[in-house]
């Protein structure tokens, strides 16, 4: 009775809205999959025939259209352009976007885990690791790129856009060992390690080198001072 008096609550609209959005996303994914399953590759030999001058048409047809070098040329041209990352289209954008989201998710999870581990093991860890440690994590590189959940979307979009640039995507494929047949999950972890931890690791290592340098200088000063004292 009370419900009927109050009518339909805002929750109902949220549910309906959510269902409509989910249906739209499902429809979009279905449409993309259907569109991307079509063969859209243009053969290089066909392109050469179409673009050759009129007097060369017959010759082009014989050489590139026939069985002399047509197939081989197509294969090698496609192979080279694929390797250099030129044959990228909308259909490649979506998997790259999903992989970017995965990378962002890994970085975000790593940031959360590091925060939790540091917070809950603060008093187990030996000395000088008081609350400044948490502040240090909060001001770290990892916080900048994975400090909030919305950064997952940002990383995903940036990665997908970068992967559409020829040569750059080939470089990313090389550093993630795609050419060795490494699977998607490992590649995502590798990129997360590269962009999440590598800058921090380089920074820590350079700090280590600097401290070693200071150590040498301090030792030199120490023995130098003793030398003067002894002399006087």
């Amino acid at each position: 009775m009370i419900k009927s008096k109050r009518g339909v609550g805002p929750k109902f609209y949220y549910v309906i809205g959510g269902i409509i959005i989910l249906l739209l996303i499902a429809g979009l994914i279905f449409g993309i999959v259907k569109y991307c399953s079509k063969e859209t590759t243009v053969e290089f030999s066909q392109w050469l025939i179409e673009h050759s001058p009129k007097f060369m048409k017959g010759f082009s047809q014989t050489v590139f259209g026939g069985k002399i070098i047509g197939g081989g040329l197509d294969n090698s041209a496609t192979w080279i352009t694929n390797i250099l990352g030129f044959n990228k289209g909308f259909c490649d954008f979506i998997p790259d976007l999903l992989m970017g989201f995965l990378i962002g998710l890994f970085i975000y999870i790593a940031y959360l885990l590091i925060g939790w581990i540091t917070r809950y093991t603060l008093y187990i860890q030996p000395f000088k690791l008081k609350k400044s440690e948490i502040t240090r994590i909060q001001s770290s590189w990892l916080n900048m790129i994975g400090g909030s959940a919305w950064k997952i979307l940002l990383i995903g979009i940036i990665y997908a856009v970068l992967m559409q640039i020829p040569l750059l995507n080939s470089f990313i494929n090389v550093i993630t060992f795609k050419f060795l047949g490494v699977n998607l999950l490992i590649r995502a972890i590798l990129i997360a390690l590269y962009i999440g931890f590598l800058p921090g690791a380089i920074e820590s290592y350079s700090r280590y080198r600097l401290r070693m340098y200071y150590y040498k200088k301090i030792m030199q000063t120490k023995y130098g001072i003793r030398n003067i004292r002894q002399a006087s």
Partner: protein
Amino acid sequence: MSKKIFFILVISLILISLPFISAQEKNLFQKSYDITKTSWENIKDFFKDTKAYLSNASPKQIFGFEMKPSWIGSFLIGFFAGFMIWLVYFLIRIYQLFLDKLVIDKDEEFLTQEGGIRWLNLAAGRIWKIPLIGLLYMVLSQIPIINRIVQAITFQFLFINWFWTSLVIAIEIGFLPFMIEETRKVMYETKLREKLFKNMSTRYN
């Protein structure tokens, strides 16, 4: 320049030894070993078996494309290696806590605190670095060619037990650089001390 040559030599040695490592993965030495034979005969048999294996094995097999190590297993090996490094770091820090109270000289105190265990701190000075080492090892063991190199430098083809693999990783990334760092520091200090004594002796003579 000498460092570059050293690295090139190490890398070429690893690359040359890859086929033998892939053969040893099948425990050929253990299989061909016979107590009644002499050592030379055993080695000869091992090379014969290795040759027979390599003549049948595909390049994919040799370079680790068909290696499928367990994800969780390799993660735990790396995790344990990280844990060992952290534990040693932890124990040294506790020792230093008691030591620092006894130190009177302020210069010495600074040097004990700062010049102590920097490498161990860098490698696994925080607890969160332990799973990170595990993750890194897991990822590396899944990449063809690199997994063979990792297998070579961690002597996995000799050990079957995961504990020894973990220990070797801990030694290579934690304890060995730490020992080198300490040795270099001692050598440097000795050099400075020698210089000081030399100066003093020339001054007084």
